[in-house]
């Protein structure tokens, strides 16, 4: 890559990546758009640069590296574990900053020692940043969706609510709105007498048969995506939920959990104290959380740099556990963002489940920070 607009600290990044035993990969700038829209959602469409091939296939300029790197790994079928690094230009429509900028990062695929791989991702990100923005005190924010999932589960909330809450995790305004709505019962209206009757009789087979017959009669069944059974089951689940409401105690426990924001060195104790006070058994999730803290200490990471914020997550369904962001203390710019995305590889077509964790660096923001 002989691009003359490369950030002047690119060499340092590449030597850091090499020293950290990663395999440098490049991916085409022009990518099929489908995987990005499929994984990140339609909202991305407004923020990427799309075009069409002569044959009508949707293409886009590479908006980030994780998906292309993972796809490349699946295609090349070279097995895991693998540690990839990248440095290159990405293209996004942004309100602030340019539309083309550089990103670099590491993707760690297939390491089954989750705690150690999580710790290494954070330690790599801190190490690289300390090299390129020397002398600045970094601040790391860490979140863990798995702990939230454990809290929701331990509260014994109905499965339908658990799913909704976990789905909204990471988007605080949506989560607050959801919690507020669960406090009052959600009555179900508009069911015909016939359906209401079948439900009252608790006759699933008859309800399924009725839905099936209606689908046949309306010519919808040939191409129906949702089956009569799926509709009947969810309807029943919804009716059960409609008669219940999130009680005040559970509401307060969730609010209290989401407001936790403590230095990582105190986080294990804070979580244990929270669980005790609320009478929740968070067993495995806390053990894994503690395991990661220990692994971070083992990796030589200065734990004093890290804060744990319980509400911090990303509302995308392939993030499963750790998320983190790193900036310079006292500033708001995020210089590095990362996390664990154990579901992504199978979403992208990998045959077996491949645990994955990684981070990417915003080189334009790093450049700005270096200039201060």
């Amino acid at each position: 890559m002989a691009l003359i607009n490369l950030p002047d600290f690119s060499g340092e990044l590449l030597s850091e990546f090499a020293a950290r035993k990663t395999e440098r990969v490049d991916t085409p700038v022009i990518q099929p758009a489908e995987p990005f829209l499929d994984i990140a959602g339609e909202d991305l469409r407004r923020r990427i640069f799309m075009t069409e091939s002569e044959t009508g296939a949707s293409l886009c300029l590479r908006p980030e590296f994780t998906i292309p790197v993972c796809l490349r790994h699946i295609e090349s079928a070279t097995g895991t574990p693998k540690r990839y690094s990248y440095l290159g230009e990405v293209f996004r429509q942004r309100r602030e900053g340019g539309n083309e900028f550089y990103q670099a990062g590491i993707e760690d695929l297939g390491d089954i020692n989750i705690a150690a791989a999580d710790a290494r991702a954070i330690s790599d990100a801190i190490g690289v940043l300390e090299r390129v923005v020397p002398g600045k005190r970094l601040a790391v924010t860490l979140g863990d969706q798995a702990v939230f999932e454990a809290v929701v589960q331990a509260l014994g909330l109905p499965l339908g609510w658990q799913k909704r809450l976990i789905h909204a995790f990471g988007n605080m305004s949506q989560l607050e709105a959801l919690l507020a709505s669960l406090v009052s019962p959600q009555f179900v209206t508009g069911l015909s007498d016939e359906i209401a009757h079948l439900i009252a009789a608790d006759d699933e087979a008859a309800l399924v048969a009725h839905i099936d017959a209606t689908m046949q009669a309306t010519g919808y069944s040939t191409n129906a995506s949702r089956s009569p059974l799926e509709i009947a089951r969810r309807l029943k689940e919804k009716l059960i939920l409609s008669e219940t409401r999130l009680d005040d105690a559970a509401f307060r426990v969730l609010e209290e959990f989401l407001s936790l924001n403590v230095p990582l060195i105190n986080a294990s104790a804070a979580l244990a104290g929270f669980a005790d006070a609320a009478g929740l058994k968070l067993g495995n999730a806390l053990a894994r959380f503690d395991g990661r803290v220990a692994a971070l200490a083992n990796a030589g990471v200065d734990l004093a740099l890290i804060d744990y914020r319980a509400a911090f997550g990303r509302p995308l369904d392939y993030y499963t556990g750790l998320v983190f962001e790193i900036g310079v203390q006292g500033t708001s710019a995020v210089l590095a963002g990362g996390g664990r995305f154990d579901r992504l590889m199978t979403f992208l077509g990998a045959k077996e489940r491949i645990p994955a964790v990684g981070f990417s660096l915003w080189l334009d923001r790093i450049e700005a920070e270096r200039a201060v």
Partner: protein
Amino acid sequence: MTITIALPSKGRMKDDASAIFERAGIRITAVGNDRSYRGRVEGWDDVEVAFLSASEISRELGSGTVDFGVTGEDLVREGLAEADKRVEICARLGFGHADVVVAVPEIWLDVDTMADLGDVASDFRARHGRRLAIATKYWRLTQQFFSSQHGIQLYRIVESLGATEGAPASGSADIIVDITSTGSTLRANNLKILSDGVILRSQACFVRARKESHANEATVQRLIDAVRSAL
């Protein structure tokens, strides 16, 4: 400065718009012959009229190549990013009513609200191996409504430029976002509107392109006042 008003070039929209302008004392005559795409206004020498298709009108308003236009609010909000910054809706004209709605198969007995749809969407991939597919020509309105207002990210849009109501039955999409005035086409295709699924209640509007030069133009305010007085 000449003020250009873009009006629909044909159909009910054209007739209804002309009627309102007539009442407002703005008599439009075609330049040359009846089928001409340019018009003038009697007694308003600094005003000219361009007859365009409704979707073109919203685009021209967005780029500021016309000063005023009569077009559907749906086309303005779908066609222009940050519509309220670029245009001003001066008056809602009381015709061309149509709602942009989210509609699902009637037989989805368990889906009555956007929250229900959110549940279905978040589970969809695990159950069916793909994202929930929405057929629509309203990309922008759909994204804003689903993502910003309801926090639903996990769906795919399948572009549909016509006969959108048929998409769920033909299997090309699971649900639709489309325009409806009476709901009869939706019902005929066994679709129902979600109880909180009205994205926009649209009607024909008298719209102004936000241009700085308008501040010093008496004609601009006179036109707005005249149209409002006719409602």
